[in-house]
């Protein structure tokens, strides 16, 4: 038992070290793009949160931005009302995200497959509508502006160059990633993977399915909520786009692009998608959509398991038997 465990440990330690290294490399290589990179980190948290319920539990969602937006608005509203300490704001985002996750899970888990996907869409639309309606608190379509976040630990201000925001976001991402690595390699994570493949088997093992999935929704909500809060803190504005179907769909696309169920895929997909979008739209803003579309098609044709699956295929000796059930 210890040999394979050690190997897995080692792989995760290396993986996390690589994430930190890549993050710091980003800091040194692109010192002028830190706001973009911070945006990527916030999105990465959102995509990670989808991986938890889609990649590990087999529940596809096109409404994850509800949880992201809940976190963003909670942090934003708290900030406008005088709670300006960044770490507290992140925690507020996490709590709001979990509550939204609990709500969303309770509704979504009533259905399966396509119906479930449609429920997720309906929920994000309702969240969006609610945020638009509650303009007294959310600023509606004009956005919730005027977030004055205090310096981190009273020392590091969130400034124009976005260094504080980026390093803060990177630290948050790494921390969350490590915790999630624990979560998915815990008995609970194993149970979720089992449910993804065969809920009837799991029931026959004497475990309920609904509470397990609901718990994952709550965890996922916390992660997405922290992403939202990070976006709110670093942007100082919360817009309706943070609870939109478009954001949800983009995030799901990033996840599928990177590959489901490994957490690494979520990061790879986010970085590739947003990086590609950024560079292509800077080169030719008028046609980036065609190119992004072509990228997606190419990935499906060349690497149906996502980009991280492609890496696996090159690196791993054993071919992973593919029995994905979306």
């Amino acid at each position, binding site marked *: 038992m210890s040999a394979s465990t050690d190997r897995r440990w080692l792989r995760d330690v290396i993986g996390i070290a690589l994430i930190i290294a890549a993050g710091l490399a980003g800091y040194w290589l692109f010192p002028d793009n830190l706001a973009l990179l911070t945006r990527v980190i916030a999105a990465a948290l959102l995509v990670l949160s989808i991986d938890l319920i889609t990649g590990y539990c087999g529940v596809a969602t096109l409404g994850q931005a509800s949880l992201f937006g809940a976190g963003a608005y909670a942090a934003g509203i708290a900030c406008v009302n005088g709670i300006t300490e960044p770490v507290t704001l992140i925690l507020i985002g996490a709590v709001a995200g979990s509550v939204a996750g609990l709500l969303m899970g309770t509704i979504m888990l009533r259905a399966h497959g396509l119906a479930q996907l449609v429920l997720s869409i309906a929920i994000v639309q309702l969240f969006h509508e609610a945020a638009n309606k509650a303009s007294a608190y959310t600023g509606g379509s004009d956005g919730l502006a005027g977030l004055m976040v205090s310096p981190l630990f009273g020392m590091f201000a969130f400034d124009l160059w976005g260094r504080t925001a980026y390093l803060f976001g990177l630290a948050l991402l790494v921390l969350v990633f490590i915790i999630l690595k624990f979560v998915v390699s815990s*008995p*609970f994570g194993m*149970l979720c993977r089992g449910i993804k493949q065969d809920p*009837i088997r799991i*029931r026959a093992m*004497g475990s309920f399915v609904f509470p397990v999935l609901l718990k994952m929704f709550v965890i996922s909500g916390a992660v997405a909520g922290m992403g939202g809060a990070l976006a709110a803190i670093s942007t100082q504005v919360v817009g309706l786009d943070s609870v939109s179907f478009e954001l949800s769909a983009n995030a799901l696309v990033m996840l599928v692009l990177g590959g489901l169920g490994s957490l690494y895929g979520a990061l790879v997909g986010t970085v590739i998608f947003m990086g590609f979008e950024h560079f292509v739209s800077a080169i030719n803003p008028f046609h980036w959509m065609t190119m992004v579309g072509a990228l997606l098609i190419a990935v499906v044709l060349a690497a149906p398991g996502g980009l991280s699956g492609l890496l696996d295929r090159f690196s791993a000796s054993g071919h992973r*038997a593919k*029995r994905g059930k979306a």
Partner: protein
Amino acid sequence: MSDLFRVEGLTKNFGGLAVSRNISLSMPAGERLALIGPNGAGKTTFVNLVTGQIHPSAGRVVLNGEDVTKLGAVRRVRKGLVRTFQVTRLFSQMTPEEHVTLTVLQREGKANRILSRFTGHSEVVGEVESILSTLGLLDVARRRVGEIAYGQQRLLEIGIALALRPKVLLLDEPAAGVPSSDTPRIEQALERLPPSLAVLMIEHDMDLVFRFAKRVVVLAAGEIIFEGLPSEVAANEKVREAYLGNYAHARRIA
């Protein structure tokens, strides 16, 4: 009331079609009972009714003196009513070791833990290893289930069930689909089942039934048509009719 497990008048209708009719039987601890019957007799429906996958139109399921008819599948498992599946339902990406470990942790109420490593529960390692070794699965314990032989997968099905420490075990065709060269291993595993366990086996393979069961129940068209010793089954006219119906009929005409 000394019976460990009892079903009374179990009936299930799908629309107007009765797939189980007034089935009653009881099992004391340590029982080795075989349930046989021709295709379409309603054996799998019976297992599903007993384990709570589907709910009966009428009748009761009693475990240890407690009526569990209203309980769902999960609660019945937790009370010791455990099944295996006719077609293996295993997680192709996981190893046998992981299957059994997950099951043991579940039984111990530790499967919901978030912040401990799955592989870090040393207290269950001994039990997992002993289950795997009893079934002769130690050498494939860390291979992915998708890569091991079907006979071994069937054994793992039994291993998962054992890890739940059942009181009553329903084996749904444990040897189905297993090449004949591997059946002895299954038989061996069945022989080593804990003696106090009540086992209800559904099986087609008559050799296996005769060697394993002390008592046989025959189901046909959703009804029990015979209950008795294995040696009496073959001679029973109703059973012959149910199994050989058309064939015997044809012979008589000829």
